[in-house]
């Protein structure tokens, strides 16, 4: 009996010592720094693809910490479905174009939309200019606003649900949105907000639909400088596929600048991260920008002070 007890104790000790490795199967990889619990970085896309089958999607639940980075959330050249790139030229070497007429997936600009586009000087895409000439508002630490918070540097986000709200927390510039689910109507004449006014509802048990209006036209839609008016309406659908996977689709309507609605995201995949995941901070700091310009930006541009 003693022998059997000792054997079982050894088995238990061995199993508990292997538990960190077993957790590593499902936990995020690549923690930076010295402390396993802090400053974690998400796995590459291939790591998600290898993982075992997920549990089923819970009903009416999109909560959790979600990773957009692995699916290409950086969206460096503009919204994922419409990068401002010419087919066969994935980099910026064709910058300097006056408009986007040659890009692979062009947008349905009106004349007013093209005129507004030309006011924006992005540092990426077919219309790119050098960094010193860009008037991208985020260069001066203006808020990215919505929907740019999901169409540029879309990294980690956390979603929590209360009885009357869905709260969205974003890594980029530590921004948040409040989506009201208490049945209220959107305001008739909203004053502009960087992140708008949002209401949400369940269209089925696994799809949460959000409508957002009242968006400040100072923000750019994406990193390629697509413009919008204060009348833009954005509809998102968060569809919970299984426990670990969500698909985000986004449609933008702004008739003055775009002759028809267009999809900025089409089933863009979000991967669920562990509930104890501490994502990195990513904040635009004006004083950090001044330091950078003093150390690097100005000297390399011959703008000596």
């Amino acid at each position, binding site marked *: 009996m003693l022998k059997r007890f000792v054997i079982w104790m050894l088995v238990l000790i061995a199993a508990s010592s*292997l538990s960190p*490795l*077993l957790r*590593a*199967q499902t936990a995020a*990889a*690549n923690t*930076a*720094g*010295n402390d396993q619990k802090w*400053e974690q*970085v*998400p*796995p*590459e896309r*291939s*790591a998600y693809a*290898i*993982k075992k089958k997920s549990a089923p999607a819970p009903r009416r639940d999109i909560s959790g910490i979600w990773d957009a980075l692995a699916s*290409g959330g*950086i969206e*460096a050249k503009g919204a994922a479905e419409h990068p401002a790139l010419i087919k066969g030229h*994935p*980099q*910026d070497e064709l910058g300097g174009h006056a408009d986007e007429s040659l890009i692979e997936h062009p947008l349905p600009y009106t004349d007013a939309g093209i005129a507004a586009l030309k006011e924006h000087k992005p*540092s*990426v895409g077919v219309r*790119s*200019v*050098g*960094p*010193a000439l*860009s008037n*991208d508002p*985020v*260069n001066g630490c203006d808020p990215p606003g919505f929907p740019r918070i999901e169409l540029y540097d879309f*990294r980690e986000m956390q979603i929590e649900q209360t009885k009357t709200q869905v709260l969205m927390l974003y*890594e980029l510039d530590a921004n948040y949105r409040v989506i009201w689910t208490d049945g209220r109507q959107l305001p008739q004449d909203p004053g502009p907000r960087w992140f708008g006014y949002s209401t949400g509802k369940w269209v089925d048990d696994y799809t949460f639909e959000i409508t957002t209006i009242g968006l400040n036209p100072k923000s750019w839609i994406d990193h390629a400088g697509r413009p919008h008016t204060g009348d833009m309406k954005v509809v998102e659908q968060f569809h919970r596929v299984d426990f670990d996977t969500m698909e985000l689709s986004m449609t933008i309507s702004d008739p003055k600048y775009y002759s028809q609605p267009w999809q900025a995201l089409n089933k863009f995949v979000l991967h669920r991260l562990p509930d104890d995941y501490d994502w*990195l*901070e*990513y*904040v*635009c*700091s004006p004083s*950090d*920008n001044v*330091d*950078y*310009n003093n*150390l*690097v*930006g*100005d*000297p*390399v*541009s*011959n*703008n000596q002070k």
Partner: protein
Amino acid sequence: MTKRLLTAILPLCIALVLASAPLFAHHGNAAFDYNKKVTVSGTVIDFLWANPHSILRFDAKDDKGEVTHWVVEAGGPPDMARQGWAHNSFKPGDQVTVTVIQAKNGAPIGRFVGNDNIILNGKPFPAVSGSSSAGAPATPKS
């Protein structure tokens, strides 16, 4: 248990080996000459772990004993952390050898290109090198 161990480690190995997206094309690169790589050695002064770019500063001494003060930028913390960097990766007094692309105007200012060009105190840095992306994902502000 062995199969489970392999299943746990293998995805991580694959993930580290695969190249990540070319983040350097995220923003304008006009100020740096991508055809002009230089290798420089020196003593670390400090390491700034911040957005828009992390910055390593070190003093390089030439054969005549003249010191050149180098400033080399990498990406901001969210991108460099994915490549195994941390706020305390470089300490004052550390010895580094780096290969960088240099500013077009010839200033001793450079940009890291990938992670396979850094020797820190005699050893490759970071310890597990897998990414070939350049370290400049954030917007250069000038």
